[in-house]
């Protein structure tokens, strides 16, 4: 089973992509830890954290591409699943602070003491254990996506309407998490983390390990996506994307397929958020902002919808551009540039970076396949066409 799935999933470009991610995941931490600070090839710690952030965004982009690129579900609220995963991890990190907080309360995080919480709210129970939090990272986004999808897909909400309600979902969560009485730190969110699994989150070694783990998560997420899209289920997803009602008339329960892939995608986004939080050191309600989700969709469009590799690449490229521009004098104009980028890509590279590249490459590849098929047919000695009954 496994070898079969692997050979199916790993075509040339997928293998190259994985090799690059693995190399980056190993070399960057090594250079950071082993080379002397200030040497030309040493990657400074702040860059490790920055690249780690990009890798998390790449996972988020993959999760969006899986549903949008392959099943035509345009979620403009995927940032919500990312943020929920992030909050689950943030809650664990808060509980790890223990009595080292400003108020020194062994159980209650600082913001709860400040807001006069008498005791820990029940939904914070269990988050002092890593494994519980790790399960929640998958479960909370997954469950929300499942419930949301069950309602939306069963009532056949599609297209723009679905996009709008996903925006509404993330906006509603934004408002809820802003409230102080919601129990997640309100406006300020969760921050001032001390350690993760006993390691100091600020330490170089921890940052390097988190970076490596993020790359590993990207590899796993990519493999899962590839296994899904190269299976027969992947063909059904594309069928749903291109001709949804036709798929129903063939006897496929379209809503089940959408629900499966939407839930899987939300879990992936949750993992991305969970890896993101310890690396950036904070999670606040701003992560639920509708704009974040839209930005993530732009990464996918730029990189190439329905190509997976393009989605990951788009996330890195756009965010790198963002880092460059927002740290320079052009900072106030970043959103205009992002908008312009989106319009330019839509007009000039409608298939995105990777999609455009494939459009060159595919005809050549198709020729090769056709040539192979022809020679195979000759070897088998199969007659190519059937005698014509009209004659």
């Amino acid at each position, binding site marked *: 089973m496994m070898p079969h799935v692997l050979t199916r999933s790993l075509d040339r470009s997928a293998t190259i992509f994985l090799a690059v991610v693995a190399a980056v995941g190993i070399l960057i931490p090594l250079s950071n830890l082993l080379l002397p600070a200030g040497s030309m090839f040493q990657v400074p710690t702040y860059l490790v954290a920055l690249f780690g952030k990009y890798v998390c965004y790449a996972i988020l982009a993959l999760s969006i591409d899986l549903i949008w690129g392959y099943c035509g579900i345009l979620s403009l609220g995927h940032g919500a699943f990312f943020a929920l995963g992030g909050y689950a991890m943030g809650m664990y990190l808060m509980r790890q602070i223990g009595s080292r907080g400003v108020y020194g309360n062994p159980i209650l995080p600082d913001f709860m003491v400040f807001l006069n919480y008498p005791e820990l709210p029940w939904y914070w129970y269990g988050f002092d254990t890593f494994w519980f939090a790790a399960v929640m990272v998958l479960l909370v986004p997954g469950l929300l996506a499942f419930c949301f999808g069950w309602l939306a897909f069963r009532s056949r909400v599609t297209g723009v309407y679905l996009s709008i309600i996903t925006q509404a979902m993330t906006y509603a969560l934004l408002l809820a998490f802003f409230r102080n009485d919601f129990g997640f730190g309100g406006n300020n969110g969760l921050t001032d983390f001390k350690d993760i699994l006993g390691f100091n989150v600020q330490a170089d070694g921890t940052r390097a390990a988190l970076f490596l783990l993020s790359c590993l998560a990207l590899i796993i997420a990519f493999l899962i996506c590839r296994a899904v899209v190269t299976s*027969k289920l992947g*063909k059904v997803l*594309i*069928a749903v994307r291109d001709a949804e009602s036709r798929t129903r008339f063939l*006897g496929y329960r*379209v809503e089940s397929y959408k629900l499966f892939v939407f839930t899987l995608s939300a879990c992936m986004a949750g993992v991305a958020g969970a890896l993101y939080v310890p690396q950036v050191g904070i999670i606040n309600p701003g992560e639920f902002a509708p704009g974040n989700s839209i930005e993530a969709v732009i990464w996918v469009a730029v990189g190439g919808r329905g190509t997976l590799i393009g989605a990951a690449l788009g996330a890195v490229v756009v965010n790198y551009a963002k880092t460059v521009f927002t740290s320079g004098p052009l900072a106030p104009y970043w959103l205009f540039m992002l908008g312009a980028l989106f319009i330019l890509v839509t007009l000039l590279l409608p298939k995105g970076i990777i999609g455009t590249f494939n459009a060159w490459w595919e005809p050549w590849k*198709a020729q090769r396949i056709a040539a192979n098929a022809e020679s195979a047919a000759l070897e088998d000695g199969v007659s190519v066409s*059937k005698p014509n009954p009209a004659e």
Partner: protein
Amino acid sequence: MNALPTRTTSALLYLDGVHVSFDGFHAINNLSLTLEPGEMRAIIGPNGAGKTTMMDIITGKTRPDEGEVLFDGITDLTRLDETRIAELGIGRKFQKPTVFESQTIQDNLLLALNVDHSVRGTLFWRETKDESERIERVLETIRLKDARHKLAGSLSHGQKQWLEIGMLLAQDPKLLLVDEPVAGMTDVETHQTAELLKEINKDKTIMVVEHDMTFVRELGVKVTCLHEGTVLAEGTIDQVSSNERVIEVYLGR
């Protein structure tokens, strides 16, 4: 269910007193029609007569306001959705050929095969010998063997029609609803399609809608003429085409 429990007949498809209106426009009016198992029926009628809408009702796309639609004498199709009806063994070819354009011809057929359609089943699916042989046979029948790796979107209109018929074959339903199969085909292709349908009819029940009277004549089966959502005439092609009303509303003098 009503005063006539013996109504559940031997018919494979049974429509009785069906009404459908769209915003007050009566597309289907007291339509009654039965198809015996193994029968092939040609449906003719002017544009807007309700032929496609009738297929929409049978396949669960449109819910009738009134009336009975029974499959196999027992199953009330008006309560089921498209997926369930397809699972029961009713396959459909659309008026406007609808194939999965960005996938290969072979994959289109693979998707149509009546095998496990559950999420689990397709996720863990592996090609079996039986399935590839079935696909092979269909490819041969629809003469697209050489084009199997081509994208369906690159086919001509006529070839898409054939691919869709091929998908019906792969689906292997009990009842085939075929909406305007020869539109966009050359005379030779039209003739081949008639032959193919007759061949399929050897073990399947078929309802075929077509405007091409030469084609209908070639099928040589019972004909029903619809007009304004109801049956205007029924019988052999000669009976129907000599019917005064049919000539008036459809065939022209």
